[in-house]
């Protein structure tokens, strides 16, 4: 006899805790909107690190390009091109375009002297204050900023902003060893396993959770004292797209509007039902969920069929 059938928990309160991300709006909405991504690989200090940083940055840029039909929406500044002038100038250019959203990835080494953070690049380094200044210029759209460097946790307070999701590789400026976080970050964007809600979009939150777990697992497996603890701050990470795959990738911009609308509506209904979960009996909740999920499945199959014609 199985546990579920004959074992009965007497302590209530065990609830479905994970946030449910129904990608209604992002799937048919802002994922298709203009999102500009800028990826920088900083100074490696030696050939090994340089190769690694360039590789991670290239992988992130490659995934980012799939988010948009316009190649100009992704900018990669690798190695020697990543000078302070180029970085700040490119940020200015992007800000001037006023895209609906802006994602910035800084890969490499960082340092913190107890007071100031510096991103290590060829020529003069960029300080945290300079990054903040460049990002804060009259820009109210959503920003997703990833500083995947050592000591990047020093920026948590400085770079926090209402319209910004900020990811750092460390929890503070004292974690100064070279970090593994960017490796797992780039892996997350190329691994559909990161897409836990299976909506064919890897959100910023899913990307972060994947990389965070991978970092922890790495130190655990290697029996090392963890010297990096990634952090994420900001409110919209769950619906900020960082990568697409599957049908959505193939069909970007070509899905029939009526189907998109239908799917968006069903997703909204599922969200609404989820919000009422505690007010419904378990049986009723799952009955209603089943109805909606069958509807969603039917629409999804229609989309798939059309895409294969």
């Amino acid at each position, binding site marked *: *006899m*199985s*546990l*579920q059938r*004959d*074992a*009965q*928990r*007497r*302590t209530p309160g*065990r609830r*479905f805790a*994970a946030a*449910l991300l*129904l*990608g209604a709006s992002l*799937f048919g909405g802002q994922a298709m909107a203009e999102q500009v991504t800028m990826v920088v690989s900083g100074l490696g200090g030696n050939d090994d690190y340089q190769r690694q940083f360039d590789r991670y940055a290239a992988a992130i840029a490659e995934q980012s390009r799939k988010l948009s039909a316009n190649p100009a929406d992704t900018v990669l500044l690798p190695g020697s091109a990543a000078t302070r002038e180029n970085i700040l100038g490119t940020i200015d250019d992007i800000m001037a375009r006023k895209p609906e959203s802006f994602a910035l990835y800084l890969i490499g080494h960082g340092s913190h002297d107890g007071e100031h953070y510096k991103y290590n690049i060829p020529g003069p380094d960029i300080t945290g204050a300079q990054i903040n200044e460049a990002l804060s210029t009259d820009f109210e759209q959503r920003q997703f900023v990833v500083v995947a460097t050592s000591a990047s946790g020093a920026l948590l307070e400085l770079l926090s902003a209402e319209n910004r999701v900020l990811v750092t590789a460390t929890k503070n400026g004292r974690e100064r060893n070279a970090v593994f976080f960017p490796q797992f970050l780039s892996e997350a964007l190329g691994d559909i*396993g990161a897409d*836990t*809600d*299976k*909506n*064919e979009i890897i959100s910023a939150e899913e990307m972060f*959770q*994947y990389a965070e*777990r991978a970092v922890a697992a790495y130190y655990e497996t290697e029996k090392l004292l963890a010297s990096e603890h990634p952090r994420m701050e900001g409110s919209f990470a769950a619906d900020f797209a960082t990568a697409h795959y599957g049908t959505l990738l193939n069909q970007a911009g070509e899905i029939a509007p009526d189907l998109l609308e239908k799917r968006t509506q069903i*997703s909204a209904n*599922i969200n609404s039902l*989820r919000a009422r979960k505690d007010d419904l009996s378990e049986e009723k909740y*799952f009955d209603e*969920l*089943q109805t909606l*999920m*069958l509807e*969603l*499945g039917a629409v*999804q*199959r229609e989309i*798939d069929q059309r895409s294969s014609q």
Partner: protein
Amino acid sequence: MRIRQPLRHATILVCALYWFSTAGVTVEYDPNRDDALLACDAIYNSGKIDASIDCYQPLMRQGSLHVAAEAAWALGETRNANELFRRAVADQPGNPHIRARWGRLFLSTHQPSQAVPLFEEALQLDPEYAHARIGLAAALLNGGGSEARQVLAQIAIDHPDSVEALLLLARLQLETSSLDSANQLLDQALHYAEEQQLPPLDIYALKATSEMLANSGDERWENEALAINPGYGDVYYIPAHYHLINYRYREAVEVLEKAVAVQPTHWSAHSQLGINLLRLNDIEGAKEHLAIAYEGDPYDTATVNTLRLLDTLEEFEDIDTEAVFSLPGADAPIQTPIVMRLHRDEADYLAPYVEDLTRRAVETFTRRYRFELKEPLIVELFPNHDDFAVRTVSTPGVGLLGVTFGYLLAMDSPSARAVGEFHWGSTLWHELAHVFTIEVSDHLMPRWFTEGLSVYEEWHTGPLRGRHLPLDVLEAIRDKKLLPVAELDNGFVRPSYPNQVTVSYMQAGLICDMISKKWSHEKLVDMLELFRDRVDTGTAVRQILGIEPEQLDAELQAYIDENYGTILNRFEEWRDTIASARDAIKFKQYQRAIEYANTANEIFPQYVAQSSAWLTLHEAHTGLGQQEEAVAALDTWYERGGHDPEMLHQLAHRLRDLGRRDRATQVLESINWVSPNNIDLHERLGKDYMASGNYAAALREFRALLGLQPHDKSVAHLNIAKAHQKLDDTKSARRSVLQALEHAPFFREAQDLLLELTTGDAS
């Protein structure tokens, strides 16, 4: 009780901790006591508490420093007393009496390690000072050492009229249920107490203990004590200790309830009552008495620790299940309720295994011990070892693995220790065997017998194959350190050398094993039932086996010679061969390593622990590229009980490579009993079981996987749904697939399964 080898003294601590440290609180045996204090003592001992307070209080202000210290102590102001003693010693540094009394204060406040130096200083001033010598012996007894007993025996020779020494010796006799010897000592103590005009209250309490242990029903001594002092709670509190060391928690609670009834201000009794109600799963009752104890004595660490534990228990879930099975000839199936009390963070992944093993154990032991459990069985697993330690002995930092209090058992959960540090399945099996052996004998079996049966059941019916004797136990056997069976309890209660508790566990297990083989398992059960009649080991051996205990000792020796003669005779050679094999591996001399390993395995093939020759053999064959032979060596190691999780993973992987999937699954399954908190393990096992058609096992594995909070829960829910579907449980399958979709609404595979489950459309 199950202990880890390196921390074997813990059991002793359980027995002695709160007994000797509280000795002498009510009755003072101070030979140089000030007359003013004696006058107050007399009032107190007559039960006139308020009057005694009025008597002591002025002495705190008017007497000399050491008298003031005594008065403060008598009034329960131990911190004040400590400070006063400090000043008194500074004032009279050459006075051994004051140092000895200061030591007694530490002894009474559960700090024997602080007391010892003070007694030693007093003895430097006066080597023959009996009060300090007895205090030192009492303090050393807390450590369980044999040294203390020798010191006491010498004191009794030097001071045959010392009532206090006689009482300590009587207590030692009572601990091993040697009632005749204890009574003789107590009668002498009574004689000298009368001669010296000392109050006989403690003697009466120990007399009452003796009657209780004999189950005579004679309450004469309680009545005598209460006639002198109606508020003398120790007349019940002291016997409670002896019930506790004999696992009689219900009886202990009964007498502790009497203790607090006659003396509501007996905080230690309230504390012990609370702790033991908790052992009987009366959580509310425990809270009530612990709260009273804390109110009266907020410095009692046992009280404070247990109250903290009660807060921790709020984080646990009670999961109800039952063992259901039929016995031949029975009209109806037996249904034994089981409550699994698990921490909420690990309940989901542990519960299936705890449930599985507990059900199997209940059925197995019900059959083997001809006994049906009468109450629900409660199984507690603690992920924090110190919580478990407080649960068992009210103090953190002890090395126990599991403890059984009758129908309630508590143990470390697998996550309480480093991966692979202990085989938690065996520990649970060991404790579950205790539940039966304790209850069959009505808590009256000798310690060695219940431990022996648990070890024996571990070897024969538990989840780990083979008999595993630690090397230091083999060395002890070789060095003729085993005790006669009639005295084997001493090896647990009062060990005389460092690893004697472990040695005694194994000796007890070997005795039970030998009885089972030479006579029958049924004889073991007969003995267990006979212990209900309060017989001693010798009587049980004579009546059930028909031989004298000494003959049983001889049989054990023959049995050991037969089974372990080779390794015992060639121990050094074996150890050297193991070392040579390892050296050969180090220098990549694999053929030579194989030769050494084979020789070592000829001598002692059962050895599967660290540096096992089977592992060396595996490594050597791997080095030579002989994969089949390497796997065979590792498989033999596993077959004989090897359970290092890393090596088991390696074996499973290699077996899979060789196409031996069923064996690989079996090996992986065994890892659950040593290291179950591994996501990859459950995912692999779940898939294997699905592939082999064992859907129930697959379901268990996928549930465990989900309980470990995997990154992608939707996949785990989907796999659970598929297992339900295969088990024709469409309703559960539908629920699980909806849970998968709840996490991941666009999950195509889950959408398809939902459609299939609701419409039968598998397209």
